């Protein structure tokens, strides 16, 4: 049997088609693959037998991989040993994934270099917690944080409730004066049991939960989910619906990048662009509202299509606004990027080297800003992306300036895509809710370039076509480590800048 199964993005396969290796083979296959530059899209455990049978020796591991040379995703699996030699000890790419396996299923990665909880979540197998946490206590973060000692060394602790209107997380800075040696990030406060819900609630709730995995990525995750269900339930999506979905994803990207560039500008005390972009971001959210009735695109994408067609009226309204806004966007961008005081603060701040970016598998604009070209829209195109031009960026120094510059380019590229899509004439079929029956004993993985980068969903079904395991991965799962690295040897006052240049999702990570 081949050690890897090569499948297309969104292609349904029978679970028996997934290679079943011995753990030893599985481990060396994964290490060889990642050693040769491959990256991990998903790596998780699931219970082969039903939920009732959990913890009775039917746990499996499954990995989905990608590399530069193949335009398909690679899948492989094995039985899950209760404890195993950590792969992270060999390559950092497994760091978060192994910690998650430990937390969710009580599997122990021996000699993992940084063994700590991910979201402070009790494992589903009934085994004792591998981190020794007590879940009857209320507060997560009950854990000996990494500490640096010495004269002049001090610690700054922030959160979970931050100063602004933002999500909760706990950050510990180990500082020498103003200089940050190390930043430790502990999340989990937003953990609300998304994956567990997805595999236990009735089908009708799935799209609602899918859209709320991360609110600013409603379209990105909503799309991953819809494609997964469509594949498992043999639902065809018409061209017109694909146009609307692609358009919605690009509008989401534009709105978020614009909001962040404004915020970045504010963080270096240059407030005019923050005010302008703050409002302009809203204009793009309102375009999503014209399209689907909600500023975040909620309720628009459903398995099988879209709930709202884009008729001549909507097309025209959006087109007019796009024409009006584009020069404004260009001018405000020009204002930000040509202001010396902004440049002075963006350049060489919060640098993540290309080497480190590769080691931790940075995705999305954060990865591209370090010179990793991967863009799921180009590599694994879905919806209309096969016919649309890709974007390339030139600023790849890995600093705040590069992350800002990449976003600026992406905004202009996305505006171009939106205009191209508006010029297409296909109209979506009107939507009728369909009864969905999922194929039994199947597996599907879907990947989309959400605005922060690669979002991915895996769905496995059992013999009755019920969902056995629903695995979600937000791009933030990779990129939080990038933020921590960007702070090394930086002034602590650069934190807001580094943070905003990544702008990661807490809830998308916490699940």
């Amino acid at each position, binding site marked *: 049997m081949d050690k890897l199964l090569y499948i297309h993005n969104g292609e349904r396969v029978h679970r028996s088609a997934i290679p079943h290796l011995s753990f030893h083979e599985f481990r060396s296959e994964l290490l060889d693959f990642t050693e040769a530059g491959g990256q991990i899209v998903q790596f998780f455990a699931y219970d082969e037998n039903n939920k009732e049978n959990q913890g009775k020796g039917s746990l499996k591991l499954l990995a989905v991989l990608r590399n530069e040379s193949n335009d398909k995703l690679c899948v492989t699996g094995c039985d899950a040993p209760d404890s195993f030699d950590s792969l992270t000890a060999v390559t950092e790419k497994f760091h978060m994934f192994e910690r998650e396996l430990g937390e969710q299923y009580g599997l122990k990665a021996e000699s993992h270099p940084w063994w700590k909880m991910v979201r402070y979540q009790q494992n589903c197998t009934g085994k004792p917690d591998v981190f020794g946490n007590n879940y009857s206590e209320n507060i997560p973060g009950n854990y000996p944080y990494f500490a640096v000692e010495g004269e002049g060394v001090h610690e700054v602790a922030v959160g979970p409730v931050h100063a602004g209107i933002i*999500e909760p997380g706990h950050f510990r800075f180990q500082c020498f004066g103003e200089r940050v040696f190390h930043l430790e990030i502990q999340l989990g*406060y937003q953990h609300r*049991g998304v994956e567990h819900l997805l595999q236990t609630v009735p089908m009708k709730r799935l799209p*609602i939960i899918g859209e*709320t995995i991360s*609110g600013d990525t409603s379209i990105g995750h909503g799309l991953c989910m819809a494609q997964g269900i469509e594949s498992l339930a043999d639902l065809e999506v018409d061209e017109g619906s694909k146009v609307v979905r692609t358009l919605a994803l690009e509008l989401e990207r534009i709105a978020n990048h614009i909001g962040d560039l404004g915020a970045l500008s504010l963080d270096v005390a240059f407030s005019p662009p923050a005010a302008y972009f703050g409002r302009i971001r809203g204009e793009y959210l309102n375009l999503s509202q014209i399209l689907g009735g909600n*500023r975040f695109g909620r309720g628009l994408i459903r398995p099988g299509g879209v709930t709202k067609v884009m008729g001549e009226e909507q097309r025209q309204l959006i087109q007019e606004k796009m024409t009006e806004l584009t020069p*404004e966007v260009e*001018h405000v961008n020009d204002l930000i990027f040509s202001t010396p005081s902004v440049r002075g603060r963006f350049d060489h701040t919060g640098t993540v080297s290309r080497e480190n970016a590769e080691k931790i598998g940075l995705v999305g604009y954060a990865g591209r800003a370090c010179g990793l070209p991967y863009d799921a829209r180009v590599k694994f195109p879905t919806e209309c992306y096969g016919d649309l031009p890709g974007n390339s960026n030139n600023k790849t120094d890995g600093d705040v300036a590069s992350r800002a510059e990449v976003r600026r380019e992406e905004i202009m590229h996305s505006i171009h895509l939106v205009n191209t899509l508006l010029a297409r004439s296909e109209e979506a079929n009107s939507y009728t809710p369909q009864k969905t029956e999922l194929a039994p004993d199947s597996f599907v993985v879907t990947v989309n370039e959400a605005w922060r980068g690669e979002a991915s969903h895996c769905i496995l079904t059992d013999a009755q076509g019920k969902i056995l395991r629903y695995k979600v991965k937000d791009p933030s799962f990779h990129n939080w480590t990038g933020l921590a690295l960007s702070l090394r040897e930086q002034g602590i006052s650069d934190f807001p800048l580094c943070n905003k240049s990544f702008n990661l999702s807490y809830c998308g990570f916490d699940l």
Partner: protein
Amino acid sequence: MLKVIKNRFEQGHRTTKYPEEKINLYKRFRGLPTVDPDCDPAVVQQCAEACPQEAIDSASCRIDLGKCVFCGLCETLSEGKFACFSQNIEMGTAARDDLLFSGSLPELAEHSKTHFKKLFGRSLQLRQISAGGCNACEADTNVLNTPFFDLSRFGIQFVASPRHADGIHVTGPVSKNMRQAVLTTWEAVPDPKVVIASGACAISGGPFYGSDDIVGDLNSLIPVDLYIPGCPPHPLTTLHALLSFFK
């Protein structure tokens, strides 16, 4: 400098005249629904069964706006006969039961006339707590500080410390992991204080209802004074609720 001035001219003055002038939202926007109690019971039943949020009570023909995520499915299914979403953004209520909606909501301003207006009418400082949702509620609360809505012109501000606040504005279903932080923050606010539950999550658990990992109903933890429904509430819904309740 020239660019600063040029952009300043191009951007002009963008603050809305709301509440003096109404803002018209596009017809697809799903605000407060109209509900027809005389609708064919079979249709209502069909909507109730399909509603992902179990928000429709077919016997009483009511929609629980505290659970509803405004997905629009009941409108599609009933072809507008049972429920039909309007562009009305005025949805805040002072009592949880008022959200059990059969076609009309009590006037929010009446509810709070004496008590809250006297206390917080001139200035209101709120500490926002994000407690486990999807962050869209926070995002659409944050935009109240953009020039378009310009919340501070009403004397309402979101502040960094609970000690500077008159109350808390909570979003999210209160994940178990945030339970203690919500309580601690609330306790840190000096008396008298208000509690606002914003969004379906904080009111009922929202999309995450039934999860073992959430509290799911802020009111079961601390007494809520003002409910702002929506998933997320439109910024205007929040603005309307704050203004009618406190001003």
